[in-house]
């Protein structure tokens, strides 16, 4: 838990030469007759941030929930480090080093920050009892670095502000040895200062070699941070583009019109402004 001990920084090799951390191929999920995710393929390399954007209801959350084990895909393939894996539940995902900040935060409102942070992987004493003191100590350490003003460690998270609750969810995802981090609208409830903290955090995690899926309905949230951007519309993947090769407006065109940058007519480009 010592801040000075920074993990090995991944060498800045070009993305193309390395094996992807995650490949999701032809993923499909439907609810009743609704094709929420319809044949989407995305991938993620170590030390990379992939922005996953699209309007509300585009299927972003449903797609990444198949990776986090919250709801397995109806069909499609997931590879981690090149190996095909089956992820039936969140435990499977965690075993592959996949950590998730859910859009809903997935906090048990009646429990305090420490109980939520360690939910499902509690620290225990030699007798197998919960080691609440150790969990609280670790929680204080990890959260106060994320959000120095956070003080309410002993109260149910129900009584915390939206930003503080989000801090708890983020702390939970980064406290354990994640290789792959999924952040579904992680700054939705945060103020400017806290948002800046999260952005710093993402930059550092990326430097440490984690792969991050950063999800947002708003391109402005992810454009500066992302290396590549995957755009979804109505359950389908519009395309994946290198951030350096596009402008925000072009991505906006993908989000709204579902067309790749070259395919926009000048008239459509006008409409975006």
């Amino acid at each position, binding site marked *: *838990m*010592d*801040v*000075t*001990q*920074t*993990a090995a920084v991944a060498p800045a090799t070009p993305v193309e030469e390395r094996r992807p951390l995650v490949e999701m191929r032809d993923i499909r999920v439907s609810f009743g007759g609704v094709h929420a995710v319809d044949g989407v393929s995305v991938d993620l390399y170590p030390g990379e941030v992939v922005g996953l954007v699209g309007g509300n209801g585009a299927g972003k959350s449903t797609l990444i929930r198949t990776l*986090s084990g*919250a709801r397995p895909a109806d069909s499609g393939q997931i590879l981690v480090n090149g190996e095909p894996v089956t992820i039936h*539940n*969140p*435990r499977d995902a*965690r*075993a592959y080093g996949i950590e*998730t900040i859910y859009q*809903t935060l*997935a*906090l*048990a*409102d*009646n*429990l305090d920050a420490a*109980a*939520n942070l360690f*939910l*499902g*992987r*509690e620290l*225990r004493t030699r007798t*197998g*009892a*919960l080691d609440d*003191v*150790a969990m*609280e*100590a*670790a929680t*204080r350490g*990890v959260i*106060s*670095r*994320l959000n*120095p003003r956070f*003080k*309410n460690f*002993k*109260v149910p998270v*129900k*009584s915390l502000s939206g930003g503080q609750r989000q801090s708890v969810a983020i702390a939970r995802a*980064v*406290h*354990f*040895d*994640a290789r792959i981090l999924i952040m579904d609208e992680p700054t939705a409830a945060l103020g400017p200062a806290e948002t800046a*903290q999260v952005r*710093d*955090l993402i930059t*550092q*995690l990326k430097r*440490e070699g984690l792969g991050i899926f950063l999800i947002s309905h708003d391109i402005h949230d992810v454009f500066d941070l992302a290396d590549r951007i995957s755009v979804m519309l109505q359950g389908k993947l519009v395309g994946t583009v290198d951030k350096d090769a596009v402008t925000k407006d072009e991505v906006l065109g993908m989000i709204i019109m579902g067309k790749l940058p070259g395919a926009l007519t000048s008239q459509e480009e006008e409409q975006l402004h």
Partner: protein
Amino acid sequence: MSTPTEGTLVEPTTPAPVTGTEPGGTRRAGFASLGIDTRLLGMVGALVIIWVVFHVATGGRFITAQNLWNLSVQTSVVAIMATGMVLIIVSRNIDLSVGSVMGFVGIGMALLQARILPNDLGLGLENPLTLPITLAVGLLVGALIGAFHGFLVAYIGVPAFIVTLGGLLVWRGLAWALASGQTVAPMDTTFRKLGGGADGAVGETTTWIIAGVACVAIVLLLANSRRQRRRVGFEARPLWADAAIGVAGCAVVIIACWVANSYFLPENLARAYALRNDIPWPEEGTLQIPFGIAYPVIIAIGVAIVMTYIATRRRFGRYVFAIGGNPDAAELGGINTRRTILLSFALMGVLCAIAAAVQIARLNAGPSSLGTLAELSVIAAAVIGGTSFAGGIGTVPGAVLGALVMQSLQSGMVLMRVDAPIQDVAAGSVLVFAVAVDTILRRRST
């Protein structure tokens, strides 16, 4: 599985040492720093008021050693089951079958010790093996019935209300069928100790030993908690607060034991006791031989301590509360929610069996009506004790106090010779009133 990541986080922009400052910077002072559940304290207050009112209304017959001793024994059966009902309700379920399961298991245990073991298996009457065999079979059957309910709820997806409503009818019917509607009696002499009564108390010396052990345990627990928090550099509660809690806790223990030791055996039982223990009977007057704490009370307190430990210090309990607070979050946290629910019902079944053993021992019989309507008292005790049907909230000590409140009302009204139907009216009204007050207070606090 995972180890904490070293240095995954951003370097703090401002140093953020681990401090022990409490919520929101609001300094907690005075009474609040005792860190005691105010709801629990409120219930103790309500209990004291009830006792005083009844004491006055009955012309001084309520707060007597005899009545309080009886009250403690009568509360045991409901309290034992209420500790399990807390976990069931906390996980957003309900168990309506506890009275019937208690009846079925109790009559089964009565049959086992009164007929099957002595006659069919040839152990004869008063065999030392009767008690352990009967208890073991009873607890196992209780666990299996509960696990079966839990399986239907958690793995098949039938709502707990339906499963246990069916169970209420099924086990009641089977309980009747077990003994063809007859009352099974008598119970094994050793077994009867579980129910209290003349031989069912530990006596004066053991009671004081228990008091001593309990006081030492309270002090050690408080000291340990301080040491734990110091270990990681948290501020512990102020010393005076810990001292106050320790003194209050020990005082309650000592007073309770003193009350139990102030209730003396009636003369005929005292004579029998004196004869058995070679104590000469005095020429004049009588011997005052204290009952001490009754076995069923010791069982109930033991159950409450174990259940508190399970609910607050074990992973299983944490998971029950997490499921009650947010089932999706529990699932996404990787908790095996189905297994947790199944286990909570199995535990409830075990507690029904313990309660059944106490009750048949107390009655010295297994009547076919055993446990009838017990589900209502048990649910009422849990709910009066602060367990919320919304899920995620409830405490074991609260439920025990809730059972004591309900039983105090009932026995107070019996002492006042209130008619049975009116007793029901009062008990029902108190239940709804208590929950209404609790709901209003809860809403205000958030």
